[in-house]
């Protein structure tokens, strides 16, 4: 099948959505600029005109309210933040309005907006340009929160998000933008709230999200060589969560490891453990574990981020420990001299 990059898949989803529905609009800082938000919005303005694809002032709270308002009258706005961190200026509109309008007006309003937020790691993005705050949004009833990993999922989930009648926070990890996968042409949807099983095994269940799934895939390849086989579940949406699949897997393996791109405290990865305890208690053979960021702001220097972020090596080590083995991830993985703070050769900062 045809392969596309994650960023191209996003772009294609936009194109399809805007083609099939004239009410879909796309805006945000820089969506029509020469870089097109890492390529994800390139060409849209040329195809759909400046009424439907446009730049905005740096006014995050108002622009979010404007998306909500437009959506109340049938428009399906997709708003983009080049960094999730900027959305903190609009928490009022997201939490007090978008998340509540459907419920608090007795079901009479729908708020079909999608807010894209880009998160990242590495290359000195530092404390205010790399926060992975999906758990904050997941804490808010009325929001949906989506975190695709593959290009295939990115396209299908963006289409579903745009045509969902509820506000969807759509989180893209910058390190995924260049990864390729098979992407069918045309319109297809992936159900929000359904996870994807990436690999099968009886030893342990790994529940992962977004870029951490890529690290997990690498780890699992190495683990296989030591005859360790895990269920890897890419949750794809953080809210709603696909509990059925998670419980089913843990009931099979009896062991749970959650991977989070963010800080552990107050996180969805804690929830997964709490819900698994509630629903699969008698199946658990060992204590469930969580691999997340340390409880500190992101440091900037590469010498600091090196130990701050979690990688395949760390996954191998924790899995190994949970299974009573003594593999050393750092000895097993050879990164071939590639610096730890970039996703690949194609990435030449600063963005």
């Amino acid at each position, binding site marked *: 099948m045809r392969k596309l990059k994650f960023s191209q898949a996003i772009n294609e989803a936009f194109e399809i959505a805007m083609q099939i529905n004239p009410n879909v609009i796309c805006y945000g800082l820089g969506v029509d600029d020469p870089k097109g938000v890492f390529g994800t919005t390139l060409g849209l303005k040329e195809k759909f005109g400046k009424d439907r694809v446009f730049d905005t*002032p740096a*006014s995050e709270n108002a622009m979010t309210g404007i998306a909500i308002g437009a959506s*109340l*009258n049938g428009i399906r706005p997709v708003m983009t933040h080049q960094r999730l961190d900027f959305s903190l200026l609009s928490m009022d509109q997201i939490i007090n*309005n978008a998340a509540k309008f459907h419920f608090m*007006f007795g079901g009479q309003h729908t708020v079909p907006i999608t807010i894209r937020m880009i998160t990242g790691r590495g290359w000195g993005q530092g404390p205010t340009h790399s926060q992975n705050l999906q758990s904050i949004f997941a804490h808010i009833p009325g929001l949906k929160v989506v975190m695709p990993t593959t290009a295939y999922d990115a396209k299908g989930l963006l289409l579903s998000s745009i045509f969902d009648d509820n506000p969807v926070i759509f989180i893209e990890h910058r390190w995924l933008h260049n990864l390729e996968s098979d992407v069918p042409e045309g319109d297809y949807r992936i159900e929000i709230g359904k996870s994807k099983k990436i690999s099968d095994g009886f030893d342990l269940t790994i529940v992962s999200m977004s870029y951490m799934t890529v690290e997990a895939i690498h780890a699992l390849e190495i683990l296989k060589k030591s005859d360790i086989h895990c269920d890897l579940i890419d949750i794809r949406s953080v809210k709603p969560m696909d509990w059925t699949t998670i419980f089913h897997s843990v009931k099979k393996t009896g062991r749970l490891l959650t991977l989070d791109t963010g800080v552990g405290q107050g996180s969805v990865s804690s929830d997964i453990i709490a819900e698994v305890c509630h629903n699969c208690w008698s199946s658990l053979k060992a204590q469930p574990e969580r691999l997340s960021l340390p409880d500190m702001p992101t440091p900037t220097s590469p010498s600091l981020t090196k130990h701050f972020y979690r990688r395949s090596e760390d996954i191998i080590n924790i899995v190994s420990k949970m299974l009573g083995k003594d593999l050393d991830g750092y000895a097993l993985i050879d990164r071939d001299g590639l610096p730890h703070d970039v996703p690949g050769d194609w990435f030449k900062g600063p963005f």
Partner: protein
Amino acid sequence: MEHTLKINLFKKLFKIRTVEETIADKYTEWEMRCPTHLSTGQEGVAAGVCQALEDDDFVFSSHRSHAHYIAKGGDIRKMIAEIYGKSTGCSAGRGGSMHLIDKSVGFLGSTSIVGGTIPLAAGVALSVKLKNSSQVTCTFFGDAAVEEGVFYETINYAVTNKLPVLFICENNLYSVYSPLSVRQPENRNIFEMVEGIGISVDHGNGNDPWEVFEKSRNAVGKIRELQIPIFLEFSTYRWREHCGPFFDNDIGYRTETEFLHWKEKDPLQFFENMLLEQRVIDESQIQSIKAGIIDEVNEAFQFAHDSDFPDFTGIQNSVYHS
């Protein structure tokens, strides 16, 4: 034509007053169990502005929303039922006094966060523009809402993109108990400041309903014709406490004298006198209009009172639209 307009305007004024004062009367029965911000004294702005709007124009409001809801033609039975927390309420009992809606007359909603609906109005105006409709979207807010950054951001955006929005600021001098002096620069008129952002502005006496109407009609006409946003500031005064049914001139944040000064300028009485003087209407017609409205309001309270409470069962499935 103008005759009917005036009578309709009077009806709006009296209906708002009657609803608000009936709420005040009955509030201490403690059956309306939610924060409630009454508009008594401020009816002129709501009625005058909404009189200038078409049925399919849109309106948003804030925490002090009853007057706007009623003036836009919202169903008062559903409104009172909402305040009583009943299943027949306009928001099915989930929203309360601060979260009213009546989409059938273009009243798209009120919310309790100061400034919260201002960008929503711009968003609806954007949608109207995209759909090539000529509807006007109006949002009502108080003098404190202009202190929120989102107000400024919205005006800037609406001007830059020529959005057909009517921004109505009801300046009643207070934010809860705080006078303007602790919140905004001395000698700075709100409308002048806002004009600096680049929007057309006007201002007027909010307690003269006809002036409000004329200025609004003028603004609405321009908005439709030129596809631009306009900001209007109207001075007015709330009679009762910020939130709740009582008078509170005794607690010290404002004086009885100030209150009486403004009570003199009662928009309802003012307009009633004007209609009588202009012989638009006579005393007996007034009495019969009033009687009709009082009946309607009483019936609405009865309806609300008699309605059932909503059931919790199943409500968790209404968080998302599916």
